[in-house]
Each structure stands twice: as structure tokens, then as C-alpha cells.
């Protein structure tokens, strides 16, 4: 009798759960984007004769069903929580979880050295093209390398984990030598940080970017280098003229995001504003936008991400301050430029920004030729120099 009752209860329980799951997948709108995974969720595939015959419909259906499983985020959080707090795994969702810092897990299989060298060679050639384009009209070009977390916090990794020594041993020395050879002004923030005692603000404990203080320090270093040479000087006041405001909102850094925001540390995003504000117009991909450089959250409690700076990645942003006595600046690179741009616009007449991952209107050289900015600043972190993932079209 007991078995019969238990059999019935089991089947009822499973029937209810299954009905809930299948009905939710089909009927409930779970949105188009996975916030924590930072990607689009799969859409319900269209049925076609070809897709049914070759099985691609079945695969796509499974992707869609998996992506729209009810309470998916809750399940993802549960798994991450079990891994971190119960099983105490050292790596959770490709994030090395230590007591006070979240670091990227580096694959043990790094790229073969010759392939790394080849990619670095291609990248250097592209930098050389930019150098040539800028030199043709007498502009200034500064290439800035900022430290990635792996390089900056290498001592925080457990001894048995890989440290991307292919970057420290292969990429860094060669890149420095090549920049010298082709005559590019290279500003290495890793070296500058070492000289300054490796301040925490040059990296982050929960994100792969630096903090706002790190961005300001980097930009100030750029300004110093640019102003050493002839021509229009960039304007940038000292720290006493800048207000730093720490946001109350929890900071959902890229590392934190991967572990579903389960481990907030004390880190907060910081807003930097000149005490004497500089009015400006902002154009995003050619269209006039709101004159803002910070994407303010609706309240004090919602998590904020690095997209707070400049409202995230746009292919092309132009900020005009109408101060012709100052130079025009073009800043290009990947997302490390965003925090810099939030303050750098105040240093120039026009600030142009190109995100190489999403700008497709022209090549970088064509853009430079068209706008002839007085100063061109490239900002890359060491890990990305030889991957060509974010190099775009030079």
C-alpha cells in the first residue's frame, strides 16, 4: 500500500512539474536577453523542409527550449551558489573565486607561440598603419596599454592555475620593442602602476576593467605625454578640481556577472566630474543623443555594470565642447576606453571615440583621414593585443 501511495505521489509530482516547465517554455515570455550571460536568448526556430531533414530544426528547438526554461536565472544562481559556498570549487563559471577578488580562469592551453607571434605581428602592422595615417597630417599618436587583471593580480591566483605567461613572456617584451622600432609613443600603464606601488584602482576586484580612478590616472598620463610635444595642449585639471562620487549601487562587474552576482565585494563604481562642468553635445553613431556620459541607474539598489560609463559601447561617439583652442582627440580601442571617455571629453574640443568591435562605417585609417584629429589615443589591455578579437578594421 505504501508503495502504491508513493508511486502515485511521485507521478503526480513529476506530472505537475513537467506541465509547469513545458507550459512556461511555450506560454511565458521570458524575454530576449540573458542579463547575466550577456547574450541574446535563442528564438523559436522556423520550420523548414531543409531544417527538418538535416536536423538543424531539432538542435535549434533544443536551444530555444533550454534558453526559455522557467526560472532559468534562479537555477543558474543555485548552481553557482552550490559550487561556491557548498562545494567550494576554486573556479566557478570560469571565474577564479578567492576571498577578496574574482579573477578570470585562464586556459592551460595557451595559443602556440608562433601563432601568437603571427597575430601580434599583424596587430603591430595595423598600429603602424595608424601611425602613418596620423603622421601624414602632423597629428600625435599615443598607444596606451593597460594591465589586465591576470597580469595585475597574478600573485592572487592559486599556484596551480595558469597565468597566461604567454602574455607576460611573449607579448609584452616584443610589443614594447616594436613600438620603439616604429616610433610610436607607447604609454605602458603596467610600468607606471608598478612605479606608483601597484595601486588597486588600476584594476578591479570584480571586473576586467580598471576603476574610474585608474581611468583618470591613465588619462592624466596621456595628457602629460601629449603635452610634452608641440601643438595644442590637452586640458586636464588636477584632482582637486575633480569631484569623485561613489555610487551606492552594488557593482556588477564582468567577473561578478559570471557568478550571477553572488559575490559582491565592497567595490563600487565611481563617477568623476569636473567641479566646473564642461557643457557638450553628444552624438552616438551620428545621431544627437542626451548630453550624458554616465548612465544613471533608476534607484540606489539596482546593480550597475561598467556600461555605466558612456552608457556602454557605441560604434562611434562624438562629443563636442566647442572650445577651439583645444585639440580634437580620437580615442579608439575596446571597452577600456569608456571610463576614460567619461572624463577625457573635458580635455578637448571634440572627442571622437571608436569602438573597433562595433564600428563598421569605415576603416580606422579612413576615419582618421576624414577627421584628422590632433591627437589619436589607442587604449588596449595586454591580454587582447595578440588575440585580434577586438582589432576591427584598421
Amino acid at each position, binding site marked *: 500500500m*505504501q*508503495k*502504491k501511495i*508513493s*508511486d*502515485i505521489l*511521485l*507521478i503526480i*509530482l*513529476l*506530472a505537475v512539474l*513537467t*506541465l509547469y*516547465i*513545458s507550459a512556461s*517554455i511555450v506560454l511565458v515570455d521570458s524575454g530576449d536577453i540573458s542579463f547575466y550571460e550577456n547574450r541574446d536568448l535563442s528564438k523559436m526556430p522556423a520550420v523548414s523542409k531543409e531544417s*527538418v*531533414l*538535416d*536536423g538543424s530544426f*531539432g538542435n535549434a*528547438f*533544443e536551444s530555444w*527550449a*533550454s534558453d526559455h*526554461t522557467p526560472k*532559468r536565472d534562479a*537555477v*543558474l544562481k*543555485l*548552481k553557482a551558489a*552550490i559550487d561556491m559556498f557548498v*562545494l567550494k*570549487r*576554486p*573556479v566557478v563559471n570560469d571565474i577564479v573565486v578567492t576571498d577578496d577578488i574574482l579573477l578570470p580562469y585562464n586556459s*592551460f*592551453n595557451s595559443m*602556440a607561440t608562433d601563432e601568437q607571434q603571427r597575430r601580434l605581428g599583424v596587430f603591430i602592422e595595423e598600429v603602424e598603419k595608424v601611425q602613418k595615417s596620423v603622421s601624414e597630417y602632423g597629428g600625435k599618436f599615443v598607444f596606451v596599454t593597460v594591465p589586465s587583471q591576470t597580469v595585475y593580480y597574478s600573485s592572487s591566483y592559486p*599556484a*596551480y*592555475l*595558469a597565468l597566461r605567461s604567454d602574455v607576460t613572456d611573449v607579448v609584452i617584451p616584443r610589443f614594447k620593442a616594436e613600438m620603439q622600432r616604429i616610433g610610436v609613443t607607447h604609454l605602458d600603464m603596467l610600468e607606471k602602476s608598478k612605479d606608483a606601488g601597484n595601486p588597486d584602482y588600476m584594476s578591479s576586484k570584480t571586473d576586467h576593467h580598471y576603476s574610474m580612478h585608474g581611468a583618470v590616472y591613465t588619462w592624466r598620463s596621456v595628457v602629460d605625454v601629449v603635452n610634452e610635444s608641440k601643438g595644442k595642449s590637452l586640458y586636464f585639471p588636477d584632482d582637486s578640481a575633480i569631484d569623485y562620487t561613489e555610487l551606492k549601487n552594488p557593482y556588477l562587474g564582468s567577473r561578478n556577472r559570471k557568478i550571477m552576482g553572488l559575490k559582491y565585494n565592497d567595490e563600487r563604481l565611481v563617477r568623476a566630474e569636473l567641479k566646473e562642468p564642461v557643457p557638450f553635445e553628444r552624438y552616438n553613431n551620428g545621431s544627437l543623443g542626451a548630453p550624458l556620459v554616465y548612465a544613471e541607474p533608476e534607484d540606489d539598489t539596482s546593480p550597475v555594470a561598467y556600461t555605466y560609463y558612456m552608457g556602454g559601447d557605441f560604434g562611434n561617439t562624438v562629443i563636442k565642447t566647442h572650445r577651439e583652442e583645444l585639440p580634437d582627440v580620437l580615442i579608439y580601442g575596446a571597452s577600456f576606453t569608456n571610463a576614460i571617455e567619461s572624463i577625457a571629453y573635458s580635455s578637448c574640443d571634440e572627442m571622437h571615440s571608436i569602438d573597433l568591435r562595433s564600428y563598421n562605417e569605415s576603416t580606422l585609417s579612413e576615419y582618421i583621414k576624414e577627421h584628422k584629429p590632433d591627437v589619436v589615443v589607442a587604449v588596449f589591455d595586454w591580454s587582447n593585443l595578440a588575440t585580434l578579437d577586438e582589432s576591427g578594421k584598421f
Partner: protein
Amino acid sequence: MLFSSTTFLAFFLPLLILIYFAVPRKLRSVRNFVLLAFSLVFYGWGGAKYLLLMLASIAINYFGGVLVGAFKSTKARKLCLFITVVLNLGLLVWFKYAGFFTEILNSLFGGFPVLKIALPIGISFFTFQGLSYVVDVYRNEAKVQKNPLYLALYISLFPQLVAGPIVRYTTVDEEIYTRRESLSEFSDGVVRFMFGFGKKMILANSAAEIADAAFASQNLSMSLSWVGALAYTAQIYFDFSAYSDMAIGLGKMFGFHFLENFNYPYIAKSVTDFWRRWHISLSTWFRDYVYIPLGGNRCSRSRHILNLLVVWGLTGFWHGASWNFIAWGLWFALFLIMEKYLFGSFLDKHKVLGHIYTMLVVVFGWVLFRAETLSLALEYAKAMLSMPFDTNGQALYYIIQYWPEWILFILCSMPVCRVLKDKLSKSDSFFAKFLLVWGVKAFALTVFALGYVKLVTGSFNPFIYFRF
């Protein structure tokens, strides 16, 4: 379609259960038709074009069986059997081995076009099932199935279609007509399925992550090679036995009783014992349809050795169209022969030593099995035997990162649950009875829930035996 997929769990299976059990039990043929239709959808989900192959296989075996059964003369029956076997094997050779053979011809004579043909999932399994049916009809061990839909149901039945166990027609012959689905068996089947699902998602997939990393490593140290080999040893067992668990559980839900396919092979005390516990349906298939017809062990020693080499070479070859699979089969043949003629009795008397020896043979065998080519397998094995023992960071990472899984790999390789269940069954206490009834279900639900969490959170879900 995979059992461990949202499509199967949330849509296919519930819909099948709903429609199947909505049909009155007395309409057995309608219920069978529902099962057949869903089985064909299950197979066609991965590519409807492959359904034609399955239907061709069904047709070959149907007509083969009918013709073998129709003729009285042995010569005619043998001829029909021969043609059916050739057609069956022809399909298998074309889709699975044509590329391998043309590569050999190309390397020997040059200029030969190397064929690259997509391997339909499960072809090795359903071909062997079809063959076993026709041969059993020829041997008068099975009755001719005159209803093509019933034969189609036998061959295409979705629980065991793509990864076994290889079900003999005689096992399910009567059940096709007269099985009785019951609440108790349905529930038992569900529990078995849930355990299999959890085994696959929690154990097999985790082991796969470790093994894949080790076998892809550019810096293969001794420690990492052992970590990888042991992980693969876990992966292949839990992956395959999980699939068998799910297949047996699903069969039971619909009234079918498939035979067990694994019996805790990693507690074996000899290689001979190992093969009585591993993929039992395949080894018994080769025993009954190849080994015994060749003469088995009822012949001279040299002939017996030859028979073993042939059977195990074919067993290896069945697993994959590659020299390393053949080498894998022959690797076991070597030890089976040595146990039979040299040190089998020694192993019987020294069980601990026998177990260690067996596991070493099995683990090295899996390296042959897993590696992409024979030369890579040899390189890998060389790393395992290299000295000195090093403290490789990657090996340490995979041990620390997966520490709970390593413990479970060991525990779940042993018949802990079986021993516990036996002890509880012998006890009269209320607590023991309670645990047997409610505890098992609660445990199964927990395992299933954890497996479901892994399903939702993972995209890493390979099934090893889908290459066959």
C-alpha cells in the same frame, strides 16, 4: 534527440505518455502504433533524412525474416539469411566504414577518392538488432514477425534505439503483444530513469570535462595523463551505463523489460570478469552470433585463439572505423587469451591483485579507445609511463576543482546502493521499509533535480556512444 535534453523531458516524453495511456489498454495495436510513431519522430528529430535509412533497415529485416520463415529447404533459408545479412552489413559498412576503407586504399595505391559519409546515429545498434532477429528466425529461436509495424517497433523502439542495450527480439517478442503496463512498474521505470539521468548529467559530463581537457593538453605530464585516463574511465562507464539505465527505465514505463547491460564492471577481478559486466548486450551478441558459430572454445587451442582474435577485433571495429578501435579490441583479446591459457587461475586466487591488474588493463585500454589515432594513443600511454612523477598544475586543478565528483566516481563504481538495498530488504524494521519505499524515491528525485540543474546550466552534453 537526447534523453538528457529539455525537448525530451518537457515535450516528447510527457506528450508520449499522455497519448499512449489515453489509449485503452485493450487496444494494444494502437498503443504500439503510438510508440512506433513517437520512436520514428525521436530518431528523425536529429535529421529526418536518416529515417529513410532506418526504414530501409526495417524493410530488409522484415522481408528477410518473412522469406527465411517461408522457405522449408535449408539451402533456400540460408540463402535468404545470407542476402539479408549482406544487405544489413552493406548498409553499416557503407555509412560507417566506407571512409576508413577508402583511406586505406588511397594510402596503398594513391589517387583513390576518400569517401566522407555522415554517420547516422545508432546505425550500429539497430543493424545488430535487425541481424539478431533474422538469425534467430533462421535458427527457429524466434517466430517470424508478419506485422511490419511490430518489427518496426522492435527495431526503432526509442529507449534503446541510439545507444543500446542491444535488445534481442526474443526478449521483447511477447511483450510487443501482451505486456501489462502497471502503476508500480511505471513508477519503478521513472525512478530508474531519474537515476540514469542524474548519473549522466552529474558524473559522466563532469568526467568528460576533465578527460577532454587532458586529452587536448599541449603539455601532457605524467600526472595529467593519469588524471585524464581515469576521468575517461569514469566518463565512458557513467555515460554509457546512464544511457542504459534511462533506456531500461523508459522501457519499463511502457511495459518492456530489457536486460541489464552493466554489472559494476570496475569491481571485476579479471579481464574475463570485466567483459561479463561491461556492455553485456554487445558481448553476448558477439558470443552468440560470431564466436559460437566460429566454433567458440570447442576446437583446438590455435583455432580458439584465432576465434578470440577475430571476435575481439570485430568488437573493436564495431566501436569505430579506426585502427585504434581495432587495437583496443585486440588489446583485450590478448589479455583474455593469456588469462585463459596462462594465469587465469592465479587471478582467481589473488583477487586484490586481480582487480588492480584488471583496472590497469582497462584504463590503458580506454586510452586506446579515446585517442583520435593510434599514434596519439601511444603518445598518451607513453606520458602515463614517463618518469619522474611531477606536480603538474593542471592535474592538480582537475583534482581540486572536481573533488566531489572524484569521490562519487569511486563510490558509484561500486555496488554500494545494491548492498544497501539488500540489507534494507532483509530488515523488518519500519525505518528500513520506509527507506525502501520513500527513501529511494526521494533520493532519485534529488539526483534528478541536481541533474536538471546541470542540464539548465550546461551546454556541455556529449553522448559518447552516439558515434556507434
